[in-house]
């Protein structure tokens, strides 16, 4: 088995577990992994992202439509959806990737796959795309909660 496959096999389940636990803890919502995740693009109007610096650098993104973000942040903050400001929305989504990456960092701290966190950032728009070099290995999973979807994507840069 290749080194990259070993890396994915170790990190992938940790990211899946982390996103499920963080969302459950922060919002009380249950997210379930779904199989239909065939689109390799970023499916969302909002992506929260963080570069993870280690022996092998990674970019972790969590992308979602606006309505998913609003629902999640509403549950996280206790603010009604209609009263969430754009700043609260973006910061809430950024906090999501921060917490997910932080949890995975703890999981893998004693392994060769440990990494450092960097500042999370959020990209918002109708037609943006995140581009990377050719032949970058990616790992992605889609999740569903209350009929809304979100996508986790890890780029091994």
């Amino acid at each position: 088995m290749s080194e990259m496959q070993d890396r994915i096999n170790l990190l992938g389940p940790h990211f899946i577990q982390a996103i499920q636990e963080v969302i459950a803890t922060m919002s009380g919502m249950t997210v379930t992994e779904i199989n239909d995740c065939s689109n390799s693009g970023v499916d969302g109007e909002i992506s929260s992202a963080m570069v993870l610096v280690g022996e092998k650098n990674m970019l972790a993104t969590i992308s979602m439509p606006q309505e998913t973000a609003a629902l999640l942040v509403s549950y996280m903050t206790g603010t009604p959806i209609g009263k969430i400001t754009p700043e609260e929305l973006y910061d809430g989504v950024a906090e999501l990737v921060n917490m997910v990456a932080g949890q995975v960092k703890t999981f893998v701290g004693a392994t060769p796959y440990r990494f450092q966190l960097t500042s999370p950032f959020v990209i918002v728009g109708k037609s943006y795309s995140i581009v990377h070099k050719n032949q970058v290995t990616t790992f992605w999973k889609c999740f569903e909660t209350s009929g809304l979807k979100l996508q986790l994507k890890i780029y091994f840069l």
Partner: protein
Amino acid sequence: MRQEMIAPFLQSTQNMIEQMSGITVTADGGFYEEQSELVSLGLATLVSFAGKVKGRLLIDMEPSLAVAFAKAVNDENYTSDREFMVLMSAGELNNIVAGDANTLINNQFQLDLRLAPPVIISGVGSIIRIPKISSMSANLMTLQGKLKVNIAFEGSL
């Protein structure tokens, strides 16, 4: 934010664009504190770095400049800023600038900063938001279009 920490990024951006492409770059004012949201001019590249402090360099440019820069660097014709080599050339510019500037500030402040590969975000009008971190921007002009250099550090020396 200390001037000695941010000035090398602006100087390096000007130098590298001119050296790599022959495009003349002029500063349109000095550094100013950026609002938390940046509305992309069209093609934004972001390089994160981590060491004793964390930071990131964002170079955002108009599509016309991205195309002209790639054309000059690669000696090939491009018609759209969404062409792969245009995107990669912009990413490589950021990588080179961040490497050059970080070498200077690593030598001066012993920050042990390590660079992550560039993340390239394409889409005019996309909003890029980095919560809870103040950043400084400088606007630059070329005959081929505008660009913005935005630099942020998290943590103090």
